[in-house]
């Protein structure tokens, strides 16, 4: 595996390999000194053209725990601000000798475009509304861990919110589908993509109608700019119909778990404090983020020498 730009690119085989590798990485992270020399001599560059807290920090932590060198690229102090093109930026950094780019960009397709301009591995940390494959790996790993089962076939996953603009949803649909889960998307019609008859999902506009059959409830962030675009009549209407409150948590099966990729919009999609949700996996998602990204880096960068 050279790149991780989408879940479909690595397929079921790559997905399962990384999830299994994550188990070993999670073990490393329980040690008193969570550091191994696996990627000594390798250099990983974080190239975040868009803001990020958890993805960026977890990648950097992951690289350090595997003893890779990290280069941190800050757009605001770089030559990108002087108008340097994406291609020149990539070629310049490549010339310094790097093994992987971790890239986040607001524009769809950037990880594919830049892979023409470098021989380094590309890890997509989010491209527009398209893909965020490591988040999906984190979520699959977290669900397997919570259920204590590697087998997710027949699991009912419900993803709620702004599916249309969500890279997390697109990656998770691909990933959970490969693992055999049944997926239901819940959103107002204006926040669902058009022409998705070929997606392996069921679609509903009614959250309350699907809660009872849900095993995993996945809440997405609603960006306030969707209001400005007129995609929802009001935040109040949205949160009334699609927000997670105590009543809806109570309507879930007692074994059902709740997830959110962060950052949360409290008072919009999250009307309940996450600490009041009995089976919230939100903190596990963050913790597992480091182990999963260690597994991804190890899989991409150690395989080269074999």
């Amino acid at each position, binding site marked *: 595996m050279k790149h991780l730009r989408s879940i479909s690119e690595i397929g079921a085989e790559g997905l399962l390999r990384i999830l299994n590798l994550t188990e070993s990485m999670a073990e490393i992270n329980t040690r008193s000194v969570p550091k191994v020399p696996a990627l000594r001599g390798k250099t990983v560059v974080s190239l975040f053209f868009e803001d990020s807290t958890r993805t960026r920090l977890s990648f950097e932590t992951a690289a350090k725990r595997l003893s890779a060198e990290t280069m941190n690229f800050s757009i605001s102090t770089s030559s990108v601000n002087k108008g340097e*093109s994406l291609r020149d930026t990539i070629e310049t950094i490549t010339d310094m000798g790097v093994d992987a780019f971790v890239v986040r960009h607001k524009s769809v*397709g*950037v990880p594919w475009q830049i892979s023409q301009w470098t021989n380094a591995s590309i890890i997509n940390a989010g491209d527009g509304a398209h893909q965020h494959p490591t988040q999906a790996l984190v979520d699959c790993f977290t669900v397997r861990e919570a259920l204590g089962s590697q087998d997710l076939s027949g699991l009912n996953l419900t993803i709620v919110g702004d599916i249309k603009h969500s890279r997390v949803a*697109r990656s998770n649909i691909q990933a959970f589908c490969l693992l055999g889960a049944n997926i239901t998307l819940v959103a107002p019609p204006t926040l669902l*993509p*058009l*022409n998705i008859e*070929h997606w392996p999902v069921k679609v509903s506009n009614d959250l309350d109608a699907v809660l009872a059959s849900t095993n995993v409830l996945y809440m997405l962030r609603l960006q306030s700019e969707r209001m400005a675009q007129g995609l929802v009549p009001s935040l109040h209407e949205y949160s009334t119909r699609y927000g997670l409150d105590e009543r809806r948590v109570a309507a879930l099966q007692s074994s059902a778990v709740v997830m959110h990729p962060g950052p949360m919009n409290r008072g919009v999609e999250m009307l309940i404090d996450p600490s009041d949700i009995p089976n919230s996996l939100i903190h596990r998602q963050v913790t597992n983020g480091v182990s999963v990204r260690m597994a991804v880096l190890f899989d991409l960068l150690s395989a080269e020498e074999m």
Partner: protein
Amino acid sequence: MTIVIKGGSIVGANGITSADVLVENDVIVKVGKNLTGDTTLDASGCHIFPGFVDLHAHLREPGREDTETIETASRAGAKGGYTALIAMPNTNPAHDSVTVIEFVREQGRKAGLLDVFPSGCITMGRQGEALAPLAELSAAGVRIFTDDGSGVQDPVLMGRAMQYAKSLGVTMAQHCEVSALTQGAVMNECGCSSDMGVPGWPAIAEEMMVQRDIEMSRITGASVHFLHLSTARSVDLVRDAKAQGLNVTAEVTPHHLSLTQELLTTFDPVYKVNPPLRSMKDIQALKVGLLDGTIDAVATDHAPHARRDKELTLDQAPPGMIGLETALGVVLSAVDLDPVQIAAVMSRNPARIAQITEQHGHNISVGDIAHLCVVDLDALWQVDPSKMASKSRNTPFVGRQLRGMVRSTMYRGQITVQDGVAQK
């Protein structure tokens, strides 16, 4: 000084005849068997067409001479068999004054490789707010007006433009796109755009404006030409309008006849174009429309862009692809047109729409200005951007094998292209 084009099949309006063509200075002086002249241009095994006419070329001069000039575009056009180009108005400054119109025409004359006919803007600066000086531009010789690059959104303004067009006897050419429906769009609205998470350019954004302008043509009697039709429903709308006797015409580009939306899943901005590549169903409808005469002409929408601009991200990169040198090959590889139909859609119909029939789109008879091209309809060739005359390289057909090759082009009796090579 005489040139004889020997051994070819002449494609007239009503059929094909095997004969030689004798050209003296810039005029066809004889058509017949066994002619001789001072110079011979071999056309054996080839068809002789009236020089092609492109209704839709972006020449980028003035303003973006780094991507194309009127001279380089003229050379590219000559290689594609063209002897006339209609220059689109979205230059900087735009074609909204007699000064710019005369500049473009003069640059074309200086290049001397084909006739450059500037279109005029419908609105000042193509801003869609105030009418350009239509009568003044018309008096300066402009016969076709468009804001191409964008459509005229305001129906009140468009109605007035059509009233003017009717009285001046000029054609209004519309880029049909309701821009409120295409904000941020990078490709057709379809399953792929949803997979990719990008805003789509829905078919209805084109069809609403086609419908509006058909109705306005009905009211005003103005002659309306639809640029680069791209959807099945647009073809149906134009077909119905023609059946009702309305004064409308339409064109299709080679890329909309041959490439589909799925190419965008490579994220390569070379496939980004406006209107966007559509579905196979749309392609089928466009082909039917071209064959049954609903669509009058093939037009290139030749749109050169600098490499650095096409290396921007998919949402930032400008739309458009070059097409002058590949148009015939792409069309013949995609649609089964006979030689008489080729002459109609590549030369005679576009010349009629552009109102340049005095010198272009003729029947290859004695007395006609010698604007001709010699085409080997069966020749297969491969697209190699490094051999292109255009200053830009943004072709989506790199490495494709095409059928139908322009061997030679004659402009005003001068050979501009021989054996596929530009002569000046």
